[in-house]
Structures are given as C-alpha cells and as structure tokens.
C-alpha cells in the first residue's frame, strides 16, 4: 500500500499564504522516510496533510491530491483515514485519551472506536504492545508513565488500529535521552515489521539510524530528496536550517583539521 501526496499545496484557515507548495511525496509499505527542515518550514503541515487531519479536522484549503493505493482520499471521512494512516504528535501528554485507567485500555481506545469486536480488539492490543515492547506496562496508569513510555503507549494505540502507515511529528522532541532511545528502538522494530513511517524530526542522528530516504522541506516546498546518507551528508543542510548528524559533523571537523579519516558507518 502506498501513501502519496501529489502536487499538494495547503493553506491554513485564516491565512493568505500557503504553507505547502506543490509537494510530491510517496511512502511505500515498510519504507521509512525522514522529513527535515527548519522550524516553520512546513514539516508538521506535511504530517497533518498526510494523515488527513488537514483539512478535514482543522480546515484550510488543500489543492492537489492525497492518495492511498492510487485512490483519492478527499471524500473519505477522518475515521476511515485513521484506519489507514496514524499520526503521533510530539507532546506525549496530549496523546493520551485521559479516560483510560490502564495502559491496556489506552492502547485499545482507537481500536474500540473502529467498532471492532471485543476479541479482535484484545488481540490487536496485545500484538501492538508486544510489537513496541510495552507488554509489561499493561496494568499501569498511563498518566503516571515517563514521557518516553507515554509516547510508546501513543504509538501502540495507533498500531492497534493497524494502519499501514504511521506519521510521526517530532516523536522524540520532548523526550529525555532514555525516552528517545526507547522510541527509536520501537520505531526500528515497526519499520522491520513492514509499517511505513513518515518521520519529521530535528534529531538527524535518529533519522540517520532509521530512514531509508530523507526529504528536505524549505519554505513549504520539498527542496531535496534522496537516500538518508546522501541527504544527511549534503553540504547544503546547514543552509536549510538542519543540523547534520554528529557523525557528519565530526567527519567535517576532522577534515577541516587536516585529519584524513573515514569514520566507520
């Protein structure tokens, strides 16, 4: 299954300028695509459009097409889109429904909304929690978890809805190093299991370890696209407001100091 953004432009409600201009982007099953760019470049807007929340939920004007398996999605209601594409935001606390007493119930929230049978929901929840490595948290109060654990619970909740694609808007931005490591590990597992991931992130080290492809957004347009190693090593990255991964920076520092070396990948 492929999620495609075809010549997508988007303008938020109440604004006169478009935040995205003619964006073409494709995410295939099992593919992990990173989106980098400066603040306000349009990364989060891409996430909202790809997940279907823009314009369905937040209004605004969208031109171009968002396709799932080549089929236009413009007429599909949000709950149908949610079954195909899940989205996770950066603030772990706002990802929780606030009405579940246990992690198990929290993870089940989305699957329940899909109107699935009880046994099917339980099976999906167990599967999702195991896939992301939080099976041991099932009985815990989701509001009393660490930020990293909360984010994992949010991702598991999306997985229980079994979307083919997940859109993650800066999933580790508000997490401590331990939380980042937890989420990164879980995302690696998901990618290995065949879920397509679209990840916007400032943390290029995380993307370097996860993504097969990276695109750069600048001023609402895609300005570069290629393999992760190619794009994250591009000399223009700083100019686009993106900090290269530590490995690239170290390599450059060594070169500038006249040290000839090739860091192991």
């Amino acid at each position: 299954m492929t999620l495609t953004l075809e010549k997508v432009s988007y303008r938020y409600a109440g604004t006169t300028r478009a935040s995205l201009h003619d964006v073409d982007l494709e995410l295939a099953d099992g593919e992990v695509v990173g989106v980098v760019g400066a603040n306000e470049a349009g990364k989060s807007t891409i996430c909202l459009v790809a997940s279907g929340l823009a314009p369905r939920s937040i209004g605004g004007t969208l031109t171009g097409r968002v396709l799932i398996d080549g089929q236009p999605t413009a007429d599909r209601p949000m709950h149908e889109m949610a079954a195909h594409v899940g989205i996770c935001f950066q603030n772990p606390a706002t990802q929780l429904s606030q009405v579940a007493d246990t992690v198990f119930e929290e993870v089940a929230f989305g699957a329940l909304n899909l109107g699935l049978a009880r046994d099917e929901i339980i099976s999906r929840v167990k599967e999702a929690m195991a896939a992301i490595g939080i099976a041991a948290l099932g009985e815990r109060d989701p509001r009393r978890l660490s930020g990293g654990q909360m984010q994992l619970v949010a991702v598991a909740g999306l997985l229980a809805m079994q979307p083919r694609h997940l859109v993650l808007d800066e999933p580790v931005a508000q997490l401590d190093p331990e939380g980042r490591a937890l989420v990164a590990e879980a995302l690696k597992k998901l990618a290995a299991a065949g879920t397509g991931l679209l990840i916007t992130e400032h943390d290029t080290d995380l993307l370097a370890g996860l993504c097969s492809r990276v695109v750069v957004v600048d001023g609402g347009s895609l300005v570069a696209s290629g393999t992760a190693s190619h794009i994250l090593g591009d000399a223009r990255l700083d100019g686009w407001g993106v900090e290269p991964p530590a490995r690239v920076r170290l390599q450059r520092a060594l070169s500038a100091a006249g040290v000839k070396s090739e860091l192991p990948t």
Partner: protein
Amino acid sequence: MTTAAAVILGGVFWPLLIVVFLVLLPAAYARVLRQLLRFAVLFSLPIAISALLVNLFFYPGAQTVLFQLGPITATAEGLSFAIEILCRIAAISGAVTLFYLTTKPSELVLDLERRGVPARLAFVANSSVQTVPAMAERAQQIIATQRARGLDTEGSAWKRLRGIVPIVGPVMLGALNEVEERSMTLEARAFTRPGRRNLLWSPMDAPWQGVARWLLVLGLVAVVGAKAAGIV
C-alpha cells in the same frame, strides 16, 4: 434518590435518618467514613453557614426572639427552619460525597455507555472529571515556577489575590493550547466514527446491586406517595 427523598420529606427526623442509614452506614461499610465527613463538611460548609445566617436572622414573619445582634434579630422560627435546611444539606452533600468516594468515574462512564449513553457524551463526562487532577498538577507546577521567579503567593489576602493572575493565565492558556492537539489526536483515533462501539469490559454488577437499585427507586416512589397522601 437519597437526596431527592431527603428534600421531599423535609423536616429534621427523616433527613437525619437518611443520612445515618443511607450515607453514614454505607460509608462506614466502604471504609470511607472519615474521608466522607471531611469532604462533605468542606463541600457544604459555605452554603451551610450562609443558610444558617440568612434563616436565623432574616426568617420572614418570625416572632420569637432568641437574641439581638445590633440591628438584626435571631429568631427561634428562623433557627428551626435553618436546622431543617442544614439536615437536607447534610443529606445532599453526604450522598454526593459518598457517590464520589465510592465510584470510579471511568467505571461509571463505561456503565453508562453500556446502557446506551452515546460514546461522545460518556467521553466528555469522563474526561471532564479526569482533567481536574491534571489541571491541579499543572497549576502546582506553575505556582512553583512563578514562586521561583519571586511571585509572592502567601501573606495577606491582597497579596494572594494578586498572585492568582500570573498563575491562572498560564494554566488556562496552556490548557487551551493543548485542546487543539488533543482533539486532533481523538480524530486520528477514529473517535468521530458514527455508530456504537464494543466495550472491553463492564463494571461488576452483582444481582444484589440490581435489587438495591430497584429498592431505592421503590423507596423514592413510596416517599413521594406518602408525602402526597400526607402520611409523612
């Protein structure tokens, strides 16, 4: 139903009987008696004080003077009526507090949904209750932050009042900021899908609980009937 019966019956005897048998004894059985007394008093104290003062001093048509306090007069009729009102307040606050202390909001909402209440309505009711502790926690964090910046939130009433603004502002704005992301999260979890949804579990509902509910309903009907017939 407890509160309705106390209000309908009126007087002193019946509300007190209701308080003892339908509030205090169940609270003792549930081992929440001390909490109940504390919360119920806190909950009803402002209204109880105002009801006592208004009726004691300003009961219309009262004749029997108890004592004089400057230009106002306390009357026996006013005191008698105030005691009746206080008994009703005790029944109402006691019953509400007992309900609060012995019922998990999530279980209540789940049960309501099982009985056909729309999922959205159930969610709104539940999240409203669950949001209160989260807001309180956020307020505590902001109070600590503002104190660290030198805001004086203790001392005279005026100082405390002035301290409220820099605390309430961030609490409310922060909550409003989160609302949009929270609502998008709900949409992304198919919350807006029409139709009923299956539930993971239902709260325990033993046969005796059903019998108790019906007995309460019958009791209320009997109270209304007895009152209408002038028996009580």
